[in-house]
């Protein structure tokens, strides 16, 4: 083991200076890793305001707190974020840099490694050290192959997938923060956040339940007709009543993109599967999805899974779901919504 190996976790603060759950998860992972390596760990904070975060982590055991703070660093912008992270990592002389797998930290993980002359791995679902050797687990081929590997190159930037480690929780304390000076020029500015053009926010990463809708909702039904309005009210009614997040198969979101507008609230951001996302939820209900084997990875990280399909042999369900109800999803979801009081 190398006793001088230093671990650093870099997190962004929210607008009020607090830390969101993914940041606390990264802190916890860095803390555990440092313990396994019997080495100190350091915390790097980046944001408009950082003192509340340092105080919240006051008893986490960090050897030091370094920060790049100010209005310019409030924005999730590559140029400023990568400069801030590189400044902190250089000040600490970090060998292992843990960051959370947020869109903000992922945007710079590779650039940070390049600036430090190191390497990076993202979407890491496990990191541990044994006898001084650090190894990570991540998925390759978009959640299809799981691999465990170690690297000798340093610095090593490791972006930890959110929801894979418990968040750090502990009493606040007085955390003295050392400011790291960073000078950076940029030609970009973040001007805001845009909700889906459809007006309805249907992607909810924190939801307990994921509803996956497939192209079946837009297909001709037993009476030879397409029932777009019924599909729309069944799905939106369910989302409103259950607060579930909405995922869609590629076939379904592609249709919306092609202007068929059968389900206008469906966008590519809803797409789950190999070329979409693989969200983490405790439960998942798939309706009218057929899919093929590789695309069912859309619910790889959904723990309990049920499906409603007219076809018992549906590829999305057989061997993949705990229960498949062979039934008409229109009828089932209408009743579900009634029961939920939608």
């Amino acid at each position, binding site marked *: 083991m190398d006793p001088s190996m230093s671990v650093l976790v870099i997190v962004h603060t929210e607008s009020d200076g607090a830390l969101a759950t993914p940041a606390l998860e990264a802190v916890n992972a860095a803390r555990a890793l440092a313990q396994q390596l019997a080495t100190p760990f350091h915390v790097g904070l980046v944001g408009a305001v950082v003192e509340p975060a340092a105080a919240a982590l006051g008893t986490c055991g960090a050897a030091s707190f370094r920060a790049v703070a100010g209005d310019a660093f409030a924005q999730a912008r590559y140029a400023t974020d990568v400069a801030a992270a590189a400044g902190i990592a250089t000040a600490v002389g970090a060998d292992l840099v843990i960051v959370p797998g947020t869109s903000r930290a992922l*945007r710079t993980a*590779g650039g940070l*490694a*390049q600036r430090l002359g190191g390497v990076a791995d*993202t979407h890491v679902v496990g990191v541990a050290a044994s006898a001084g050797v650090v190894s990570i687990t991540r998925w390759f081929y978009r959640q299809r192959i799981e691999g*465990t590997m*170690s690297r000798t190159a340093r610095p090593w930037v490791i972006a930890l997938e959110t929801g894979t480690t418990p968040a750090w929780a502990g009493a606040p304390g007085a955390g003295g923060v050392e400011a790291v000076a960073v000078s950076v020029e*940029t030609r970009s500015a973040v001007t805001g956040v845009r909700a889906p053009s459809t007006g309805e926010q249907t992607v909810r990463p924190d939801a307990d339940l994921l509803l996956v809708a497939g192209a079946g909702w837009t297909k001709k039904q037993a009476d030879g007709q397409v029932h777009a309005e019924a599909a729309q009210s069944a799905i939106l009614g369910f989302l409103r009543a259950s607060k579930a997040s909405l995922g869609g198969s590629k076939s379904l979101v592609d249709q919306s993109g092609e202007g068929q507008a059968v389900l206008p609230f469906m966008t590519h951001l809803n797409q789950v599967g190999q*070329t979409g996302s693989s969200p983490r939820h405790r439960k998942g209900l798939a309706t009218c999805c057929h899919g093929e084997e590789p695309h069912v990875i859309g619910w790889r990280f959904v723990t309990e899974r049920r499906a409603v399909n007219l076809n018992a042999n549906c590829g999305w369900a057989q061997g993949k779901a705990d229960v498949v109800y062979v039934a008409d999803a229109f009828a089932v979801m209408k009743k579900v919504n009634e029961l939920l009081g939608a």
Partner: protein
Amino acid sequence: MEFHIVVCAGLVPDPLQTLEPVMGPAGPGLKNEALLPSVIDPWAAHALFEAAHLARARPGSKVWLVSLAPKAKLQQVLMVVAQKVPFDLVAVDGPANGFTDASACAAALADAIAAIPGLDRQKLLVFGGWESASRAAGTTLQMVGERLGITEQFQGVDAVTVGADGAFEVLERIEGGRHQVATCSGAPAVCGWATGSLHEPPNSPQVGMMNMRTLMPALQKARAASVPLAGAFGAAAVPSARRDTRVVKDMSPDAIAQEIVEWIRQ
């Protein structure tokens, strides 16, 4: 203002293929890797279509496609891609495998871009897929950008709207199915594309003929790049995830709804 758009796109196994990792002496690869049918990496393909669209709207602009992959596979796949949109190919001969190192891959791509004759770095937009369907890391383009000294970077891009002066507004995917909106004063910049908003263009034999003029010479000239595996692999496996599915066949919709609601409330 015109742009010089360089699109970085790798090859990946056709998403409908079954993938089976095999451990060799050096580390993992895919079973029958050389025989698996390949396609251009899906998000990088969107980047290529967006690049062509942008170049068409800005007379004087030009598109290059830089691809690091085994030469023989590149030839096969590009025969199809070359029918879609006009580009000049820059080929680098190397592995397309998802277990290789992003930094080494980025080094090879950045070298290839830096060597493009006539490329104006002040007009340069480096496009590519946000994350590949093989390594799926989202780090390569960032590293390419850093190596080329480009610090205006955007990832998970679904739209770039360019004004008359070359400044643009860009939408990047963030959590919750939303987009972050940013403005940038213009090139040089890096954009890692997600789906964007364009459809795959239909095949055009004329475009194919035009591309063919640079395609074969570029493949012949392809330099070999050594891209090692990312690290020492302990394992690589497809986790067996087969569930015993309970198939419920003759329950009324009302009774099913009742059961589903109880399960949701647990």
